[in-house]
């Protein structure tokens, strides 16, 4: 077996040193009744080549985004990832290290986490950020829980179209933790108002009015960003108390749903109520700048049942991919990328609007919007998929949520338009 270094004679020597006859003697605590009667119904060792054949077959049965025109977004976006990103995250020193508990031998991880936090803070216009959450949905949920702790209030108000899976996640957590979720104006029992912008339907929200409502009622304002590339073009949501969302669009492949990374940024005064790991700057005994996991007394390994969250392992390597890609893009690159996305989406919207019976529903959008079709969107998505075109996300009825990114070519748009024209005839 290629993975196991012990030879039979190694094993004999080790058993002798321990003073037992066979390895099962080491399992003598296991009660007799707990040993299985038979062997599991599973195959035995396979060569790398045999396993590769199996995986080639699994992969072949999927239609990947690069196999044809692709217009699906809905919280996960098809963006280009520079070669440098995957090279860096495959470096042994990043890929195969643990959470940086021993700072003297983990400065590499700790420094990029510090840089990740810094860039998330810059993008969102917040003072501080943590080292990552599982994904966009759990970062929204953790933000709502944090707002409850800070305000000591129970209710959450959702403004506009929050990603339905984020909302469902929030509802599941609240079903055991307690708290009400509604969509009317905030009042004196409201812990926070949650607004996604661009929202699930692509609409961009003006935050000024919401900020005022929050101030009047004493609620916190939580802004959610599911497409983080939009922050290269849209103003930073700096009026928010907490900004959370999904990092996937920068450096992280779609990978059928994960792993991605959630980001979590807020004002400094709330740091003690934050969930998750935080990396801070300090010095070592020789006075050199160093980084270390800090504010640990919020966390489960110290505070146990009183911790701000139960999160332990987070999304380190995905946060690294994000950090590397964002470093490559830089200030001007991100602005350019965001603008390119917006221009592509505007052109797509114009092209769709030329089809008889199709209208664009959005007043505003970034790289995704809702098109009203003359036919059922679900039918269209299924039919086009059978022809190798992933058309978008069927919102129900005749509405199709559709996105364009820098990956979208003129010929992709042309194929889509022609295919839709055939279906709506």
């Amino acid at each position, binding site marked *: *077996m290629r*993975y*196991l270094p012990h030879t039979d004679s*190694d094993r004999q020597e080790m058993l002798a*040193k*321990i003073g037992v006859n066979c390895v099962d003697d080491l399992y003598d605590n*296991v009660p007799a009744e707990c040993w*299985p009667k038979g062997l*599991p119904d599973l195959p035995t060792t*396979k060569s790398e080549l045999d*396993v590769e054949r199996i995986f080639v077959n699994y992969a*072949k*049965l999927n*239609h990947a*985004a690069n196999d044809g025109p692709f217009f*699906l977004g809905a*919280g*996960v976006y098809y963006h280009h990832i520079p070669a440098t990103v995957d090279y860096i995250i495959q470096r042994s*020193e990043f890929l195969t*290290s*643990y959470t940086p*508990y021993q700072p*003297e031998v*983990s400065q*590499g991880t700790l*420094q990029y986490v*510090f840089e990740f936090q810094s860039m998330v803070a*810059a993008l969102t216009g917040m003072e501080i950020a943590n*080292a990552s959450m599982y*994904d966009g949905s*759990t970062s929204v949920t953790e933000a709502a829980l944090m707002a409850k702790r800070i305000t000591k209030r129970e209710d959450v108000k959702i403004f506009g179209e929050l990603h339905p*899976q984020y909302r469902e996640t929030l509802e*599941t957590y609240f079903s055991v*933790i307690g708290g009400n979720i509604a969509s009317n104006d905030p009042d004196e029992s409201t812990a926070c108002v949650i607004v996604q912008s661009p929202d699930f339907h692509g609409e961009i929200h003006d935050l000024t009015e919401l900020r005022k409502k929050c101030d009047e009622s004493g609620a916190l304002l939580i802004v959610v960003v599911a497409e983080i590339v939009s*922050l290269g073009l849209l*103003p930073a949501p700096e009026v928010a108390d907490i900004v959370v969302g999904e990092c996937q669009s920068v450096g992280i492949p*779609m*990978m*059928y749903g*994960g792993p991605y990374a959630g980001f979590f940024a807020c004002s400094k005064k709330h740091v003690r109520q934050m969930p998750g*790991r935080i990396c801070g700057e300090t010095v070592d*005994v020789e006075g050199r700048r160093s980084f270390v996991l800090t*504010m640990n007394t919020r966390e489960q390994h110290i505070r146990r049942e009183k911790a701000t*969250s*139960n*999160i*332990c*392992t987070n999304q*380190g*390597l995905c946060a*690294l991919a994000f950090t590397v890609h964002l*470093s490559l893009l*830089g200030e001007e*690159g*991100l602005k*350019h990328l965001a603008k390119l996305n917006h221009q592509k989406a*505007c052109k797509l919207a114009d092209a769709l609007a030329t089809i008889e019976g199709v209208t664009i529903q959005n007043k505003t959008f970034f790289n995704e919007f809702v098109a009203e079709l003359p036919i059922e969107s679900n039918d269209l998505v299924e039919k086009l*998929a*059978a022809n190798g075109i*992933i058309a978008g996300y069927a919102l129900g009825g005749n509405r199709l949520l559709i996105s364009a990114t820098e990956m979208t070519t003129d010929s992709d748009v042309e194929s889509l338009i022609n295919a839709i024209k055939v279906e709506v005839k």
Partner: protein
Amino acid sequence: MQEIEERLLCEISRKGRRAIDLEPIDSNHNRLGVDERQSIGLPELSEPQVLRHFVRLSQQNYSIDANFYPLGSCTMKHNPRQNEKFSRFSGFLNLHPLQPVSTAQGALSLMYELKRWLSELTGLPGVSLNPAAGAHGELAGMMVIHKAHEMRGRQRKVVLVPDSAHGTNPATAAMCGYTIKTIPSTKQGLVDMDLFKASLNDDTAAFMLTNPSTCGIFDPKVKEIADLLHENGAYFYCDGANFNAIAGKIRPADFGVDVMHINLHKTFSTPHGGGGPGSGPIVVTAELDPYLPVPNVVKTGGAYQLVNEDEKSIGRLKSFQGHFGMFTRALSYMLGHGADGIRRASEDAVLSANYIRASLNDLYHEPFPGNCMHECLLNDRHQRDAGITTMDIAKTLIEHGFHPMTVFFPLVVKNAMLIEPTESEPKETLDDFIGAMRQIAEDVKLGDVEKLKKNPISTPRRRVDEVKAVRDLKVTW
């Protein structure tokens, strides 16, 4: 390790540099409803600079590829590269989670097969792949238990947790609204049966027990514990972080487990990535299966479907269908090893831990003498009087070329050192490690205390000021 300084990205930035060339923009639409953002505050670098920056940072890290990394409870085993390669096939990498299921049959059948493996290995029929990590699996599992009590008509109030438990256990139970009652361990590091029985009543929702335990011991009373819980209408939540000691040999179903999470990033070798991503599927009994979170992959006829809504389910715990990129790696590990290889890996992990224990327990205190499972627990009792603590031993190990073991966990043992060698290390490495540990103990005996207290000295940084980090909090540049 060589000494490396690497400045922050913002310190090597210069206006006008770029590392990505993008398609030019030939139109000027604005349907944003707002003016374009003027400034963000991101650095500007060229591609070679970015590459060098991160390569140099990487050189300040330890890794399992380069060094022995015996972190107890964390399972730093070999991460086969076939897993990395297969997980990056375009058919997985460029697959969107909300595509029509007809276009993702390969991915769904892979998930279905992974569920079958987890079910076979644990003996528990219900599987959910959704949870993002161990702690998230705990939350899923405890929500399932919460739901089961609700469905039986009466919610219970208390969750029992041994004092040796990982912090995520009480933190999770508290999130579900339960009160935590701590059960102290016996002098042997086991569940105190008298205290356990005295605490168990019809208000007990569940017992969260790690088995094999965080002390590295398989609790011989585990089946009796399970039976007592079930007689009282309570559930047995098993923290499966240590499943790698028994996988392929003992099935948690056979010792009475109702719910268990499995850290794919431990037992099934998906890389830790310097702190994630993980993946924490849960397995449950048939009774609890209906309450598992959505979505769930099912097979109807010849085709695979995703069930997104289910009345009995606790609901959704995160967006999409779990950390798929970890599923490919874990299944690749399982297929490569086979059931026989998985069993052998468990045995070798246990053998190696016991070998270290038997080779060190004359010089280091063994709080719970006797055979261990896949990790061996020692502490600094014999060194403390000389002024040397677990922390000093850990930091000195770095000077010997080894990553420290897990220190100060579990909390039941003062100044714990939890050593988990895993099955991946050859005997020669174990002997080198044993040699280093013995050398440290001898140095303490010889009174070389001041030298040990200074360690580490040859690392990129020496001991860092954690108090200052909190006092002068600075978390961004």
